[in-house]
């Protein structure tokens, strides 16, 4: 079923751990799609969907271009492409220049998602050593969506969530243990 709500999660160095923590606790029946953008080295990119699928009952797949976003599915941004959300709630890929030295860039996904889902989305920024995702969180805020960051004291690298807290009015600060409960509560059917 087409997803009426979107949860977009972005992370860099140290971002995988909170994702692994939250996945097993997700309710099976949420009326939302989840997109995950993690910076990583090209060579271990393709194992990520498999790794995450082992942690959840949700369908996990690498995001494919033109694919419609469906509830109950987790889409992983493929390595070396930006992942964009179209206003008709389908996915696009683009191999344009890196943004914040990153491709996929969290900013690109968050900002295009904000345009497509407006107030019907939440963006969560995790641990990381650069500021990719901060501008994207601003766009989500401006469009009426909900913003959240990983509690910097729980982050392996706190630069990214700290930058977000400095530059953007963030609504929620979450520990990895709290994240699933948070998502379950906002995307409840």
């Amino acid at each position, binding site marked *: 079923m087409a997803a009426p709500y979107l949860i977009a999660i972005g992370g860099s160095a140290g971002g995988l751990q909170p994702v692994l923590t939250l996945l097993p606790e997700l309710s099976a029946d949420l009326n939302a799609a989840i997109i995950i953008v993690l910076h990583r080295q090209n060579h271990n990119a393709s194992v990520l969907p498999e790794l995450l699928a082992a942690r959840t009952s949700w369908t996990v797949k690498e995001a494919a271009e033109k694919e419609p976003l469906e509830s109950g599915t987790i889409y992983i941004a493929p390595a070396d492409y930006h992942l964009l959300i179209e206003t008709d709630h389908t996915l*696009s*890929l*683009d191999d*344009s220049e890196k943004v914040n030295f990153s491709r996929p860039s969290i900013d690109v996904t968050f900002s*295009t998602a904000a345009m497509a889902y407006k107030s019907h989305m939440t963006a969560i920024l995790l641990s990381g050593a650069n500021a990719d995702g901060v501008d994207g969180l*601003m766009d989500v805020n401006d469009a009426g969506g909900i913003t959240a960051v990983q509690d910097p004291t729980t982050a392996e690298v706190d630069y990214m969530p700290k930058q977000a807290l400095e530059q953007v009015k963030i609504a929620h600060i979450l520990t990895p243990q709290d994240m699933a409960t948070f998502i379950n509560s906002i995307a409840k059917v």
Partner: protein
Amino acid sequence: MGRNQINEQEVALLLNDVLERYGYDFTDYAPASINRRVNHLYQLDRFPSFAEFRYRIISDSVYALRFVEEITVNVTEMFRDPSFYHALRKEVLPILATYPSIRVWHAGCSTGEEVYSFAILLKEAGLLHKSIIYATDVNASVLEKGRKGIFRLSQMQQYSRNYMEAGGVEDFSSYYTANYEYAKFREELGEKIIFSPHNLVTDGSFNEFQLIICRNVLIYFNKQLQDRVLTLFCESLEQLGFLALGSKETLNFTRVAKKFKQIDSKEKIWRKVNL
């Protein structure tokens, strides 16, 4: 915060202007990506308002060309996705070798890195002398760079690694001469390449090929345009010819799917089989 100062409707207006005035049709491109490009250019060139941006595009044909060149994404590299080139080498070239002459089309070739990579494969297989490679793009300035065959020296380490991963056994640096920051590729590699403008949206078929390579171009098109361009490719391929796409592109679920069969290695290479 207004990082996106031009909205989707305004972008659509501009694309219409460019189509009506100059004949470049971007109206069937995937919107999210083109939106980003247009906004990026607007900020880069510091326009004070949308109206002035639009006026400049309408009234200044030189600027309009810049618009066309800047909204297309021209990122490319040599031997990008080495396993793809490995499959070309092992599974496609031996079949092409059986033809008396070989015609290849690189559609959306950008600055030519991909084309020179393929010319190296042909050369190593002893096929370059009987091949002709058409390299086309909508963006005239990238074609000019391709003709020169000069790329940044700083990239060569990466390209050399890619080349070896793709099964190359020669000394990669023997294919170019280094000069300051640039690497100029050997003349003989370029001799069989014809760089020329071709717009996949508006221009038709111009030859019959045994291999068409079009990588990371279709992702920028919407589904209808993808189908149209794939039909053009199908019509431009000989029976049993090959079609190669980018690593995130597919023929599955497209209009021409039934006419093709994917090769065994699971790379994004299909063979025209039906009828």
